[in-house]
C-alpha cells in the first residue's frame, strides 16, 4: 500500500513537472519544474528497489545539473537591448504558437509510432511474483568492476574529457 502511495506521488510529481517544463513561459520556472520532475523519477527508482540509482539521481541532478542550468540561464540572461542584428530576440521566448503547433503534430506522430512499438511489450509482461527488495549497492559495485569494467573505464574517460572540455570551452579568451 505504501509503495502504491509512493508510486502515485512520484508519478504525479514527475508528470506534472514534465508538463510544467513544456508549458512554462519562464525559463527559470522551467528549470525548477525540471528539478521536481527529476525528484519524482528518483522516487520512482525507489519504488522499483533501485536505491543506489535513486541516490545517484538525487546527487547528480539536484546537486549538479540543475544548478548548472540555473547558472547558465543567469549568465545568458541579462543584456540591454533585446534584439540582435537579424531582428530576432536575443533572449528568445519560450516558444510561439507556431512552434507549439509544429511540436504538437510531431508529438502526435511520434507518440503513435512509439505506442505501436510498445503495444507488444505492454501486453506480454505482467507483474508476477517479484522478489523482495535487496540492497543493490554491493552488487552494482561488483558488476562495475567485473562484467562492465570496460564501460566503467570509458565513462570515466568521458567524464574527464567533459571536465577538461567544458573548462577549455567556457574560458573567456583574451583578444
Amino acid at each position, binding site marked *: 500500500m505504501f509503495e502504491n502511495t509512493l508510486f502515485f506521488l512520484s508519478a504525479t510529481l514527475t508528470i506534472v513537472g514534465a508538463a510544467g517544463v513544456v508549458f512554462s513561459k519562464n525559463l527559470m520556472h522551467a528549470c*525548477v519544474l525540471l528539478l521536481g520532475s527529476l525528484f519524482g523519477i528518483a522516487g520512482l527508482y525507489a519504488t522499483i528497489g533501485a536505491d*543506489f540509482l535513486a541516490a*545517484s539521481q538525487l546527487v547528480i541532478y*539536484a546537486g549538479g545539473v540543475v*544548478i548548472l542550468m*540555473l547558472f547558465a540561464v543567469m549568465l545568458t540572461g541579462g543584456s540591454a537591448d533585446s534584439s540582435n542584428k537579424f531582428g530576432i530576440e536575443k533572449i528568445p521566448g519560450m516558444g510561439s504558437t507556431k512552434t507549439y503547433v509544429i511540436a504538437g503534430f510531431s508529438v502526435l506522430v511520434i507518440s503513435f509510432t512509439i505506442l505501436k512499438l510498445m503495444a507488444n511489450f505492454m501486453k506480454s509482461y505482467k507483474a508476477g511474483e517479484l522478489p523482495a527488495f535487496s540492497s543493490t549497492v554491493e552488487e552494482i559495485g561488483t558488476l562495475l568492476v567485473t562484467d562492465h569494467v570496460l564501460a566503467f573505464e570509458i565513462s570515466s574517460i568521458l567524464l574527464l574529457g567533459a571536465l577538461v572540455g567544458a573548462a577549455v570551452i567556457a574560458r573567456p579568451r583574451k583578444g
Partner: protein
Amino acid sequence: MSPSLNEYLNQFEGHQKVIATVTEVLGFDATGLMTFIVFFTGAFVVVNVMALVGGLGTYAERKISADIQLRQGPNRVGPYGLLQFLADGVKMIMKEDIFPAQADKTLFNLAPLLALIGVFATLAVVPFSSGLTLANLNVGVFYLIGVSSLVGVAVFLGGYSANSKWSMLGGMRGASQIISYEVPVTISILTIVLISGGMSFGSFVGGQGGFPHEWYIFHNPFTFIGFFVFFVGMLAETNRAPFDLPEAESELVSGYHTEYTGMRFGLFALAEYIEVFVLCGVAAAAFLGGYRVPFNLGDGVVFVEKLGLPPIIGKNIGQVLQLGAFLTKTLFLYYVVIWVRWTFPRIRVDQVMTICWKYLTPLALFNLVGVTIWVFAFDGHSIWDVLGHMLSSGSGGGHH
C-alpha cells in the same frame, strides 16, 4: 543492533501486543498501519526537536560569541536568556512581510521552503542512536549528500528571485561554493565507505567502537587528515565563517537573504543552523564513533544480566546512553563550528575557490588513494592493530 526505529520497537513484546490488538479491533492486518504511525510519530518528534535545536543554535551562537568577546550576551528573556530565540521568532512573525516589487513571486516564496525541505529530509538518516534512526537506508550517506544539495538550489533561487544586486551576488557565490565544496566532502566520506564497506550509517557506526582508538578518525593517518578536510568542507557547505561569503555583511549587505523579511528570513536561518547540526552529526557518526558507548553499554545487555533489570528497561537505558554519546560528540563539533566563526576573519572570495580546488580536493584524492592502499595492504586493520602486531611479533611477546 537494530537498524531503525520500527525494528527496534518490534523486538519488544508490548509493541507486538499492541499491533495484535489493533489488528483485532480493525479487522485487517495492522502491521503496515502501525509501522506508518510509528514512523510518522518519530519523524514528527525528530523534526520538532530539531527545529528547537535550530532555534537554540541561534542562542548558542550569540552566547558563545559573547563569551569569546567578553560580553554578556542575551540574558533578559527567561533564565540565562534561554528563551531569547522564542522572542526573536515572535518578532519575526509579527514583522511585515515585504515582497520586492520586481521579484519573481513564485521562486521568492519557494526558496526558503526548499532550503527547509532539503535540511529536514536529511534528518531521516541521521543516526541518533541504534534505535532512534528513522530509516537506515543502504545508501544513507549518499542520500544525505543528494538531498542536502537542495539547499544550494534554494540559496541560488533566493538570490536570483529577489532581483537585487546584493542578493544576486550572494546567491551566485553561495551556489558555486556549495557545489564546489561538495567534491572534497564527498571524497572524504568515500574513504569511510571504503573502510566500513557500506554506505549506510549503520555500517559506519557499526564498524567503530566506543573508545577513541576504535574510531575511524584514528584508524589510519589518512582518515585523520580526511576528518579535517571534511570539517573544513562542511563549514563551507553550510556557509559558515570563515567561508560565509554568500552573506558577507561588509560587502553584500546580507547576501542572498537581503530582501527577505520576517519569517522567510527566519526559515533560511533555521535551515542553516539545522544543517550545521546535521553535518556535525554526520562527522560524529562517520569519524568519531557516532553513538557507540564504551564497554558495549549501549546495547543494554550488561544492565539486564548484571543488575537484573527487565530487558525493556535495560535496552532503553542503553539507548539513552547512546543518544547521550551521539549528542555529546555532535554538540562538541557544533561548539567548534561557532568557535571558528568568532575566531577567524572572513577570507576573500577567490581564496575560497583556491582552497577548495587547489588544496582540499587534491588532499582528499590523496587520502582516497592512501586509504585504498591501506585497506588493501593491512586488510582493513587499524594502525593500532598493526602496531600492536608488529610490537608483539618483533620484540618477542612484548606487551603494549
